[in-house]
């Protein structure tokens, strides 16, 4: 599951990858004609809308891809970097950049491209950009208030307007296609030409636009990864075909005492119930959060056995099924509920002395196991818990 940095690809390796991604970036920008100011400023005088076409197409392609990958659980949309919104500085900074664009004819990325193919004006632009950034860093205390004003946080435009991501995606793609058609006519008018478009090319454009809408349609209307897993669980429940591997409380206690390190005891109840009481060495993974990226390794490993428990039979079985569909670890469910475990081991009442031997043995086994488990938990307080994978918010920006 993406993003690959920092768990799968290290920060160091990401620098090497950055170089190759940069090559792709520079190559396509130059191929599109962004190394020429004539093409770039053409946008603002209406004679060449290449910039709008390339820019908008790139934006909606990447956006559709991000939504699609998020839908199928390939990319975790909750942790990718969303540029934070500081209302005042975003608008004012943008306006200053717009002035720079029309005066200088480049933006930073395109000036680097233009420099690479030998444009001397691009070098001048970059020198200017260097001075501009220096002016900002040196004058930062003066503009700090403006820079930090009206912070809306890492908010998506869809959240701001209270619509779904995909609804906004449709709107953006619709706007893009409409602008492509409109600028085609404007461009012809400004350049005073009567160019038609060949039928094959027109069909290709129509097909590409349709493909984009189909991708968005898939995200909007077909079930995603989470839906698929939930549906599988519902199906298995309905057909009652599932066989669960079960473990009894006594057996579990014995296992914990003798080899706690081969087990992941997983509490799928809500976190507050976990706080009140939980089994020794248990980790809290509430049922709703089982699909979180941080817990994924737990369900995909084969080294330890996962043992699920909850307060009722249905919940624990659903959790076990869910784990089965997420990964391929070995999963057991505890026959007893959390409450029963507590009664059996921690609140056990001593049987009368004249009870049968079996009853006495069971009582002694349980009380001594409870003591041993407590000792173990205390002894391993700092080392026993599995290393938690913290979901890192990725820092980025320009």
């Amino acid at each position: 599951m993406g993003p690959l940095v920092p768990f799968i690809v290290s920060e160091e390796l990401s620098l090497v990858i950055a170089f190759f991604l940069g090559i792709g970036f520079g190559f396509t920008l130059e191929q599109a004609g962004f190394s020429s100011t004539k093409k770039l400023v053409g946008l603002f005088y209406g004679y060449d809308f290449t910039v709008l076409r390339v820019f908008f197409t790139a934006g909606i392609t990447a956006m559709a891809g991000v939504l699609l990958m998020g839908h199928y659980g390939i990319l975790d949309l909750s942790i990718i970097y969303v540029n934070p919104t500081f209302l005042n500085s975003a608008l004012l900074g943008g306006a200053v950049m717009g002035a720079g664009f029309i005066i200088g004819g480049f933006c930073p990325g395109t000036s680097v491209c233009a420099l690479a193919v030998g444009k001397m004006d691009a070098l001048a632009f970059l020198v200017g950009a260097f001075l501009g950034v220096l002016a900002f860093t040196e004058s930062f205390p003066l503009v700090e208030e403006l820079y930090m004003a009206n912070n809306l946080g890492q908010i998506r435009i869809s959240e701001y307007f209270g619509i779904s991501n995909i609804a906004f995606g449709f709107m953006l793609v619709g706007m893009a296609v409409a602008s492509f058609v409109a600028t085609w006519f404007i461009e012809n008018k400004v350049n005073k030409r009567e160019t038609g478009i060949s039928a094959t090319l027109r069909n290709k454009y129509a097909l590409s636009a349709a493909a984009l809408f189909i991708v968005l349609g898939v995200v909007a209307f077909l079930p995603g990864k989470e839906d698929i897993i939930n549906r599988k669980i519902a199906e298995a429940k309905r057909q009652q075909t599932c066989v669960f591997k079960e473990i009894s409380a006594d057996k579990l206690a014995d296992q914990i005492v003798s080899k706690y390190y081969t087990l992941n005891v997983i509490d799928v109840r809500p976190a507050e119930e976990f706080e009140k009481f939980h089994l020794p060495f248990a980790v809290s993974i509430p049922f709703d959060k089982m699909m979180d990226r941080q817990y994924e390794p737990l369900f995909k490993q084969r080294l330890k056995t996962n043992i699920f428990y909850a307060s009722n039979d249905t919940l624990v079985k659903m959790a076990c099924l869910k784990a089965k569909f997420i990964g391929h670890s070995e999963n057991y469910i505890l026959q007893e509920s959390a409450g029963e475990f507590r009664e059996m081991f921690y609140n056990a009442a001593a049987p009368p002395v004249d009870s049968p031997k079996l009853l006495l043995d069971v009582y002694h086994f349980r009380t001594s196991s409870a003591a041993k488990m407590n000792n173990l938990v205390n002894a391993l307080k700092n080392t026993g818990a599995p290393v938690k994978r913290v979901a890192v918010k990725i820092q980025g920006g320009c």
Partner: protein
Amino acid sequence: MKIEETNSAKTYMNPYLAGFLLGLVLLATIYITGRGLGASGAIKSAVVATVETVAPQHAQNTAFYKNFDNEHPEGPWKNFLVFEVVGVLVGAFFSGIIANRVSLKLEKGPRVTNLTRVIAAILGGAFFGYGSQLGRGCTSGSALSGMAVLSLGGILTMLAIFGAAYALAFFFRKLWLK
């Protein structure tokens, strides 16, 4: 949409195809690193590195540079965007070579002198550099990457960039048009 070229340089790629490829590069970047592309961040790294080399005393006494160092403990150069921009140089050069577009020249509007063009480029660059820091990213880092992840700020910055450029286009037409 054939563009007439006077020299033997190849025509540019179809803009929609180029945009699609650019979108894939951006998507790959987001998938691998969880963040988008950028350019002005590399310039910021260069500025910070220069200030720290030329005027270390000053850098140590200024909050902005100290904060930068805290956020980038491995120094200004060891940065995703720096490596990416070096790649941009290589990729664009490669593209220029195969399209036969590499030559030393100063491109300008038909009515301006070389000096005017250079001054305008420096001035424009200065505006863009300043604005990119104020707006937390330039056309690539804020507008393009912001659009891909539906960032409100990124899309607003994009509208502001293009809106301002359109609004001012009339006043600077002598720089570009006949």
